């Protein structure tokens, strides 16, 4: 098995350091930004790091096409393999691919219970022992507190770490509230354990922790998204 522990250099290690060990099992984390800043790449990077550690990931997507997501994984894998000068990259690739399942749902009218039921079926009947669930493309504007509570309960019961992306759309009003929390998430703050926002600043994207469990949030992280690869990198 090709387990590579998160090295000290790993930018995700920094992410964990600044959020009291990361979201952890039973927790919900959200990565929020306007469209096109790099949320999906970021989530796929987080998922790929988990896969490198030998931890299975379920990637739930509301996008219309599965091949699009697979391409993201391929690109990010290639980039990481290149950066780490991985030998026998293909063998590693084939092995970690077995630990990833993509579950795609058509958003219209798809109820939270149904999504969770299918994810649970994958874990129990498919014997897919996921520790991390990535949820990309979920529409928080349509989410009720009840929906989020169901995700939260599911995370606790199944001991999963769930990572969401939240797209912030211009509505005319402010995008963020006084604490820096995206307004679309304000109502759900209690259900969320970690909230990180991405901000485009000229040609770089900075990451800001706006909620960190019950601790005061760390604010801007010494991390950025590499504009070329969209990978999370240390701020130089």
């Amino acid at each position: 098995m090709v387990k590579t522990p998160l090295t000290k250099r790993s930018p995700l290690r920094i992410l964990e350091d600044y959020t009291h060990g990361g979201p952890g099992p039973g927790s919900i984390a959200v990565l929020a930004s306007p469209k096109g800043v790099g949320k999906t790449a970021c989530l796929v990077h987080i998922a790929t790091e988990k896969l490198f550690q030998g931890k299975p990931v379920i990637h739930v997507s509301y996008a219309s096409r599965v091949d699009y997501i697979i391409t993201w994984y391929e690109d990010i894998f290639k980039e990481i393999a290149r950066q780490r000068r991985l030998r026998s990259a293909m063998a590693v690739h084939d092995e970690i691919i077995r630990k990833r399942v993509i579950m795609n749902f058509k958003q219209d009218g798809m109820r939270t219970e149904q999504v969770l039921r299918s994810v649970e079926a994958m874990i129990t009947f498919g014997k897919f022992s996921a520790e991390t669930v990535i949820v990309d493309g979920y529409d928080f504007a349509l989410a009720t507190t009840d929906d989020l509570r169901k995700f939260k309960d599911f995370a606790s019961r199944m001991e999963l770490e769930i990572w969401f992306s939240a797209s912030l759309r211009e509505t005319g009003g402010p995008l963020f509230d006084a604490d820096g929390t995206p307004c679309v998430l304000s109502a759900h703050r209690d259900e969320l354990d970690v909230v990180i926002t991405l901000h485009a600043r000229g040609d770089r994207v900075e990451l800001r922790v706006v909620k960190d469990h019950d601790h005061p949030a760390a604010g801007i992280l010494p991390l950025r998204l590499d504009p070329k690869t969209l990978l999370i990198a240390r701020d130089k």
Partner: protein
Amino acid sequence: MTTIDRMRNIGISAHIDSGKTTLTERILFYCKKIHKTHEVKGKDGVGATMDHMDLERERGITITSAATYVSWAGHSVNIIDTPGHVDFTIEVERSLRVLDGAILVLCAVGGVQSQTITVDRQLRRYNVPRIAFVNKCDRVGANPFKVRDQLEEKLKHNAVLMQVPIGLEDGHRGVVDLVEMKALTFEGPGGENVRVGEIPEDLLAEARKRRDELLDAASLFSDELTVAILEEKVTAGLIREAVRRGTIARKLTPVFLGSAYKNKGVQALLDGIVAYLPHPGEVENEAVDLEAGGTAVKLVTDPSLPAVLLAFKLEDGPFGQLTYIRIYQGHIEKGTELWNTRSGQKIKIGRLVRMHADDMEDIAEAGAGDIAALFGVECASGDTFCAPGLNLAMTSIYVPEPVISLAIKPVDQRSLDRLAKALNRFAKEDPTFRTHVDPESHETIIQGMGELHLDVYVERMKREYDAEVETGAPQVAYRESITARAEFDYVHKKQTGGAGQFGRVIGYIEPLAEGAFEFKNEIKGGRIPRDFIPSCEKGFRSVLKKGELIGFPVIGVRVVLTDGAYHEVDSSDAAFQAAAVGAFRQVYRKAKPQILEPIMKVSVEGPVDFAGNIFATINQRRGTIVSSVEDGTFTRVDAEVPLSEMFGYSTVLRSLTQGKAEFTMEFLRYGRVPAPVAEELAKTAAAGKG
């Protein structure tokens, strides 16, 4: 020659027992091509015209795709028989490829059944516009309104009734045409007299209500109709035009009603085919340009352009091989010269015919969009014929290697004689079906893409060729390969009296990422004479045919010769071949050999309620789930599963999901067999050797 807008190429798709064959017969009858209809169940021993293969009737599935020509209301209609089974991928693909539209037949009692869902999904996959026919309105419990609702709920069709029934069950007499607002009843012994009359008083309210629904649905596709509705100037022509547009865009499904068995409503359905399904010019077709590196080229349904034809079906008739073709571009006539872009062979069109099941009619020419059959053309099913100057392929040239094999043995001399003919025919029809005689066991081996694939051919040998065979257990086509570089230095020496033999080869073998075998000679200075180098290569090639682990071919090997030695007198072709064989045997184990197995790309579809069962079946079969896609009612699971684990999967899946899930599989790649399984295989192979 019929103009393009008066041509229709259609298929009839249905769940078993919804009356597809009876409907086809009635269509042929009303088009005056046959004069007597038979009941499908075969009381008179004649049976239906379309399903001329007994096997199909027995299994309730249609395997071949005969095309039948009829004419109706000044239009030429080609009816292509479509296989309703998912396993014959190539067969399904070819017949769906030549369709421009389809009739989805449903039972007025059973409604949308599991196989309706299957065939509908196939049609959807190939973007085939469809109209629905709710058959068996004479049966107890018939409810076409419920069936329309199911089309909407279960198949997500925007289904709209074009008719309402005049009476149901025993009292079913005809239909009300909601476009013309007339009552149609069918009289005479075969229902051949269509009587147009006023709508019965008691149906008027229902008819008006349903017509409003029809107008609502149709107006979305025509602004003219919308305006006409507001101004109350709706004409039948406007409605038809709007429904036609919606149908061709696959956004509307017009629903027709009747009872083929009781001769009700079939003529109105034929009118519907002509009115609403597209003509060949309204459908986009693409070919692959073999010159320009496989880029897609759009074909234009224009008879004056250079011809492009697809041979989609071969049949053995009393007059030799019959090749069914669809013309996508240009036109052909007697004497037209074309070439087969797969084989490179030139052909000249001789006899050109139109087929009516087992009957035929000679024609002088055929143009773009048409379907016809040729005599005396040597080709395989799926071949493309082009006018000189074009080099296109209608179907993918890539044919996967067979992944499963079966030993067959004729039961008697008679069967043996007929078997060769059958095998030859099947191999021509289906490029994924192969056959050879094993040099060691002298058994005839047939190879194909799956269990059912070979089963069907074994049945066909018996039914069509009267060749009965016994079969062995299906065998997965394993491969062996190496994972490490290893060096050899081998001397083959026999110099004890008589003519001696001497040859020495030095070099190494290493894994080859792509391809089966590569031979490289790096010897400098004639340590092995040039003449004997091919002997070495030949030796290596021969030994690779049967790996030492389990006796399957070894692939992915590069042999590099770096040095050697020879003897002036005793070295020979045979000696160096033997040296190569010895060298490989010496080094193979050192190169860390492994067993590879075919990994299939499996796609399972079923209702979401069964998602868990589907996940479990994949997991139990050493499979990897790649993705699942859910749309609220259905889930599709894509997975990679070793072929050896897929035997009997259809039965398991059917019983776990009450027949509501289906799957397809195709070869994906060769993958490494896990150690415990490999040990088991090696043990079996050793036992087999005795």
